[in-house]
C-alpha cells in the first residue's frame, strides 16, 4: 500500500514516542542506580548532568571496581546491609525451576484436555480456572502452616513448588488453547498410521506448539520473578527473592533508592535474557491462533 511521505514520517515519530514512553521508566530507574542520593532528588530533575557512581552496585553486589569482590561483612560500612547478590541467584533458581515444573505438568495436562474425551472435561477446565480466582492471601497463611509441617519453609523446593503450582492453571489454559489450534486431524492421521498417543504428542504436537510453550514459559517466569506475597510469607533468611529483598531497602531512616534501583536494574537482565532466548518462538506463540483454519 502506498503511503505519503508525511504519513510515513508521522508513523515513525509516533512509533518513537511510544517506544520513549515505555523506555523512559527503565532509563530513569537505571540512571538512579548510578547516582548519589543527593542527585536522585535534585530539583529540577537531572537526566544526564550528574556525577555517576557505581557505589550502589558495589554495595548491592559486593563488587568493588578497585578492590575486587567483597563479602557481606566487608562491603557494608555504616551499618547498611544491602548485599543482595545471593538473592538474585535465589530468584533465578526459583523462577527457572518453577517454570520448568509448571510447563512440564501443564503441557501434559493441556494436551489431555485438548484431545481426550472424558466425563467432566469442561468442568475440569472451569475448576482449573477457578483456582486463579481465589485471592492469594487467603492461601498464603494456610500454606505457611503446611510448609512448616513439611519442613518446606525457607527452602528452594518449597518456593519452586508454590510458584509452580501458582502458575499451573494459567499455563494449562494457555497451552490448551494452543493445542486446540493444532488441527486434530493431524493426530487422527498419525493414529491411523499406527503412532501411539505419546509418540504423537512428542513427535508431532509438541514441535508444532513450540511457540505456545515458549510464550507460556515466559509468562510463568515473569510471574514467578515478580511474585511477592508467597515469597514473603514462606521465606525467612535462607532464601529470598528479588521482590522481597527490594522492600528491605525501606529502612527506619528512609529508603535507599539508589541501592533499590541498582538491584531493580540488575533484576531486569535475567528476565530479558529469558525473553531473548525464546524470542523466535515467542512471536510465533503470541500470534498463534490469530490465523485459524
Amino acid at each position, binding site marked *: 500500500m502506498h503511503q505519503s511521505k508525511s504519513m510515513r514520517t508521522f508513523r515513525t515519530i509516533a512509533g518513537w514516542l511510544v517506544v520513549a514512553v515505555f523506555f523512559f521508566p527503565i532509563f530513569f530507574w537505571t540512571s538512579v542506580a548510578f547516582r548519589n542520593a543527593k542527585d536522585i532528588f535534585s530539583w529540577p530533575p537531572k537526566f544526564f548532568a550528574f556525577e555517576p557512581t557505581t557505589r550502589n552496585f558495589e554495595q548491592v553486589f559486593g563488587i568493588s571496581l578497585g578492590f575486587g569482590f*567483597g*563479602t557481606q561483612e566487608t562491603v557494608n560500612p555504616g*551499618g*547498611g546491609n544491602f548485599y543482595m547478590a545471593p538473592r538474585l541467584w535465589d530468584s533465578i533458581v526459583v523462577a527457572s525451576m518453577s517454570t520448568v515444573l509448571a510447563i512440564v505438568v501443564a503441557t501434559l495436562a493441556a494436551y489431555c484436555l485438548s484431545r481426550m474425551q472424558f466425563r467432566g472435561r469442561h468442568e475440569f477446565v472451569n475448576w482449573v480456572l477457578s483456582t486463579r480466582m481465589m485471592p492469594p492471601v487467603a492461601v498464603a497463611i494456610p500454606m505457611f502452616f503446611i510448609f512448616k509441617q513439611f519442613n518446606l519453609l525457607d527452602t528452594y523446593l518449597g518456593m519452586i513448588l508454590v510458584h509452580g503450582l501458582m502458575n499451573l492453571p494459567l499455563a494449562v489454559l494457555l497451552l490448551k488453547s494452543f493445542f486446540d489450534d493444532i488441527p486434530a486431524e493431524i493426530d487422527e492421521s498419525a493414529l491411523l498410521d499406527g503412532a501411539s498417543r505419546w509418540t504423537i504428542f512428542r513427535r508431532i504436537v509438541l514441535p508444532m506448539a513450540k511457540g505456545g510453550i515458549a510464550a507460556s514459559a515466559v509468562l510463568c517466569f515473569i510471574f514467578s520473578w515478580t511474585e511477592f506475597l508467597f515469597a514473603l510469607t514462606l521465606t525467612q*533468611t535462607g532464601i529470598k527473592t528479588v521482590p522481597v529483598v527490594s522492600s528491605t531497602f525501606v*529502612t*527506619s531512616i528512609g529508603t535507599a533508592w539508589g541501592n533499590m534501583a541498582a538491584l531493580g536494574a540488575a533484576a531486569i537482565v535475567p528476565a530479558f535474557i529469558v525473553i531473548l532466548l525464546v524470542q523466535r518462538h515467542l512471536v510465533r506463540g503470541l500470534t498463534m491462533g490469530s490465523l485459524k483454519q
Partner: protein
Amino acid sequence: MKDSVRKYYLASITDKFVRGQMGRRDFLRAAGKLGLGAGALGMGFGNRPFSMFSNALAAEELTPNPEILAWLKDVGKPFAGTTLKLATESTPPSNAINGQLKKYFEEATGIKVEIEVLPLEQVLQKLTLDVASNLGTYDLYYIDQSWAASFSQDVFDPREQYSAKADLAMPNYNLDDFLPALVDGIAKYQDRWVGVPYDIPIFIMIYRKDIYEKLKLKVPETLEELYTNSKIITDEMGPNVYGTSGQMKSGHYSLECDWTAWLWGHGGSVFGPDGKFTGNDEKGIAALEYWTKLKATMPPGVDGWTWDGQGQSVAQGVAASMLSWGEFFPYFDDPTQTKVSGLCEVAVPPRASSLRTVKETGYGEIPGVGHQGGSSLAVSKYSKNPDAAWIFMQWATCADTQALITTLGGGTGPTRASVYDDPRVLANARVGAGTTRHLPIVRETIAKHMGSEPDLPEWAQLSSDTIPVSLGKYFAGSYGSPKEALDDIAAQVGEVLKG
C-alpha cells in the same frame, strides 16, 4: 595524650584522609605518631571499598570488649551449633549487628544468628503469624513500641530471665543502665517488661543554622515560634526553600506520629483516663488548626511523604527545619549523600503550650512533643532455644555492643545512659557521616520532652490505619472542619475499641 584526645585526633585525620584532604604519606606519618604504625597501612585500603570514617576506625578501635567475648565463649559452649532467628526492621542497630558485629558473637559461641531484615509492617506480619501459630519460627522478637501491648504475653520478661538463670547472666549487664524513660515508654506494659529498649528514634528539632542566621531567627522554643520562623522562611525563600517539613502521607503511621506531637504539644492527649478518645476536645482541635496553618509553610507534596520524603526534603535543601526523628541527623551530615552536611544543627523540641500528666491520659500514654518510636528486643516464649536467645539478647543490648552499634551504625541513639558517655561515641561527635554530635540533645529530649503512644492491643490498628486514614482525608479536604474530622475519628476509634 589522653585516650579520648587520641581517638578524636585519629578520627579527625582519618576523616581528612578518606575525603582526600590529606595525602597517604601525611596520614601514615600522623597515624604513626599516634602509635598505630604499620596498622594504619590497612586503613582505607584492603577489602574496605567505601571510604567511611566509621569503618576506618573499626579496623583499629571498634571491636568487642575481650572480657565479654571470653564470657560469650564460656557461656555459649553448650549451645554451639544452635541457630537463632530474628525478624527486624531495617534500623541502624539491627544493620550494625547483622552486617558487622554478629560475627564476633558467632565466633565466640558457635551459635549461628540469622537476621531477617524487613520493612516494619512486614515484621508485624511475621511476628503475628509466629505468635498465632506458636511455632517458634523466630527466637527473638523486635517489638515496636506501638505493639508492646499486643506481644506482652508472648515474650519473657528480661528481669525474670536475668534473676532466674544466674548461670547465663552476663556480668555487669546492669538492667538499671537503660534510660528509665525508655523502659517506661518502650519496654513496659503494665507491670511486665516486654523486652529491653533496643533503639530509640525520637523527635528532635533539626534546623538549618545558615538559614536561621541569615534571616536572624532564633531557635524556636515554643510551637508558635516554630510556626512564625517557618512562615518567615517560606515567605522569604519560597518556593526554593520552605520553612519546615512533615511526614504526612495519608493512611501511613508517620502521619499519626506527627499528629501526636502537635496534639501533645497543645495540651491534648489521644485518650482520657476513662479510656475514651479525647483527641477531639478543644485541645485536639487547637492542635489540628495549628498543624493546618503550619502545613502551609511546608513544601508542596508533603502529604505524600512518610519520614523518607521528609528527610529527603531537608537533605536536599528544600526544607529549612523539621521536628522529626533524630536518626536522620548523622545522614544529613554525610557530604556524599546530602547537600546540607555541616549546615544543620539540633535542638530540643519546642516547648508544649501545656502538657497533660500521665494520670490525665489513658492506656499509659505519656504526652510530650518529642514523640518516640523506639523498639524493644525480647526472647519469644515459643522459641525452641530460649537460653541461647537470651545470651544473644544480653550481648546485643549490653553497653559495649551498644557503643559499637552507635559508632558503626551511623550515630544512632543508644538506650543505655552509660553509652552516651562512652569515649568511642564521644570521639565521633564531629561533622561527617555517622556523627554523634546530636546525641546530647537526644539524651535531653528523652529525659525531658519524650512523648509515648498509648499501650493497648488495638493501638497497632488505630495508629496505622484508623487515625492516619481519616487525617489524610482531612488534609485532602474531605471534612468541613477540624472538629468534624476529629469527631469522626472519635467515632471510629470507639467502634474499634468496642471490638
